[in-house]
């Protein structure tokens, strides 16, 4: 009987080792975010932890930080455009690749996924070479194109994962009952893969909002994005406003994560 487990030296040490390592991992995962949050409420001018006293002054200072606001606006606009295009291109491609076991489907799948393992900085440089050879000036459009390439894989991956759960028998029965392809898509396929698309769209947006390697080469002076602005702040002067921006980003991210978890089961889609 397996239930008769006596606490032995073996099981105690196993639990202890696994538990300690898992605990350390959790601490490592959560601590940096918590540290930034606490630091952002400092009253002082330095990034001391714990802060000498607390205030909202650095959050208040964001109200006049128009450079940061402009950059945030560009990033939001960019994220929206990139997500919209990535969802359309990624979902249609997933529908094509999803059911096929053929070589072309596997080849395309590998091609569309490759931006995830390729050094993004090398792709950024390649894009810069491409647009300058073609004589196209850098703009919001070139920036968006670069971002779409690195964001599409996320939509493709989550949509393919949810398509795998769609029973082909459902499609056949819908078809044999006389439903057209578009009707079947709207009433059978789409409801099944909606959560996968949603999770993919969310991650695509986050990856675009957070992208530096591609933006570094593709952005022109008028389209400075938020992460690059922050990077420059951190490199030149350890401005405490960066902590306040981080605080805002963390709050928005955690909120969006909880909402996405409720609506689309984000964590299930990620696996």
């Amino acid at each position, binding site marked *: 009987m397996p239930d008769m487990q006596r606490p032995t030296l073996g099981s105690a040490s196993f639990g202890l080792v696994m538990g300690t390592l898992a605990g350390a991992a959790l601490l490592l995962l959560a601590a940096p975010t918590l540290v930034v949050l606490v630091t952002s409420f400092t009253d002082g001018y330095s990034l001391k932890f714990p802060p000498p006293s607390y205030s909202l002054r650095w959050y208040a200072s964001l109200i006049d930080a128009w450079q940061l606001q402009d950059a945030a606006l560009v990033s939001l606009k960019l994220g929206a455009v990139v997500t919209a295009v990535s969802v359309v291109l990624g979902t249609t491609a997933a529908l094509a690749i999803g059911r096929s076991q053929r070589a072309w489907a596997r080849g395309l799948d590998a091609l569309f996924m490759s931006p995830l393992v390729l*050094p993004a900085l090398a792709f950024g440089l*390649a894009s810069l070479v491409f647009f300058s050879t073609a004589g196209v000036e850098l703009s919001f459009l070139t920036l968006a194109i670069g971002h779409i390439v690195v964001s599409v894989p996320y939509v493709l991956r989550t949509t393919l994962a949810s398509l795998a759960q769609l029973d082909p028998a459902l499609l056949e029965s819908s078809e044999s009952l006389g439903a057209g392809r578009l009707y079947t898509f709207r009433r059978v396929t789409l409801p099944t893969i909606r959560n996968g698309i949603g999770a993919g769209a969310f991650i695509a947006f986050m990856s675009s909002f957070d992208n530096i390697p591609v933006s570094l080469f593709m952005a022109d002076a008028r389209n400075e994005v938020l992460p690059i602005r922050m990077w420059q702040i951190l490199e030149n002067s350890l401005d405490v406003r960066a902590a306040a921006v981080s605080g805002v980003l963390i709050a928005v991210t955690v909120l969006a994560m909880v909402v996405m978890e409720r609506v689309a089961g984000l964590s299930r889609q990620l696996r």
Partner: protein
Amino acid sequence: MTAITAPGLAGPATAARPRIGREWTLALPLAAFFAVFFVTPLLLLVAVSLYADAEMTRFGLDQYIRFFGDTFNLAVLGSTLLLGVKVTALTLLFGYPLAWLYTRSGPRMQSALILVIILPLLTSVVVRTFAWIVILGRDGIVNNLLLSLGLAETPLRLLYTEGGLVAALVQVQMPLMVLPLITTLSRLDPNLLDASAALGAGPWRGFLKVTLPLSLPGIVAGCLLTYAASVTAFITQSLVGGGQMLFMPQYIYQQTITLHNWPFAAAISIVFMVSVMGVVMLFNLLGRASKGYVHA
């Protein structure tokens, strides 16, 4: 499901596939987009790397000869590839127990754990890196702790060291390791462990002989993602690593933006990409071998 469709059974299954055979047209828009904005730029990058001089007037393999002829460049490549190995190994060491804990928790605990696990994945990379500056800086938490405990006389230099960089990268890449591990671990049949326990194997033996081998596909997938992400982590490398250490992404950036030597930057990029792809393919081969091991 896919596992059941073994080659021998494929006959009837293929016949039952939807009759419309033109689904592939749906892949055309993305294929065209990738052909123009992904494949062409990469091919152009190869072409640029074949210019012998920075002014791009004549062709030649000079850039590659220059790269491989200088031990400095080889050291940069080597330390970058090694950095990935260190980060991946540590991420596995801490990530595996975390994934194991997840599969043994109740549903409420699981949803709390998953939020903590994916939090770094979705927090801005600048924010995460910034946190490490606060933690590892001269006035940082670690130094304050060491000083107050009397373990150090003066603040230690933790930022801009490789140890600090590895710690930051492990945190940043941990989700990429834990998520695939959770997937494989939760697919394991719990009866197998019960059987191993009933046959007298202790938890260590059961773990080493049953759980670990069966989760190899997840380990390989996690290592692949973690490795690729940590060798290319430009921002973390440059902010936490600082100017003391040079890794391939910064080297490419420096050659392009500061020195405007496009052909050399392109050649470094190609060498870097081929190296990373080589490691990734090695992982993939291991993955295929491990899957064979699992089914056997």
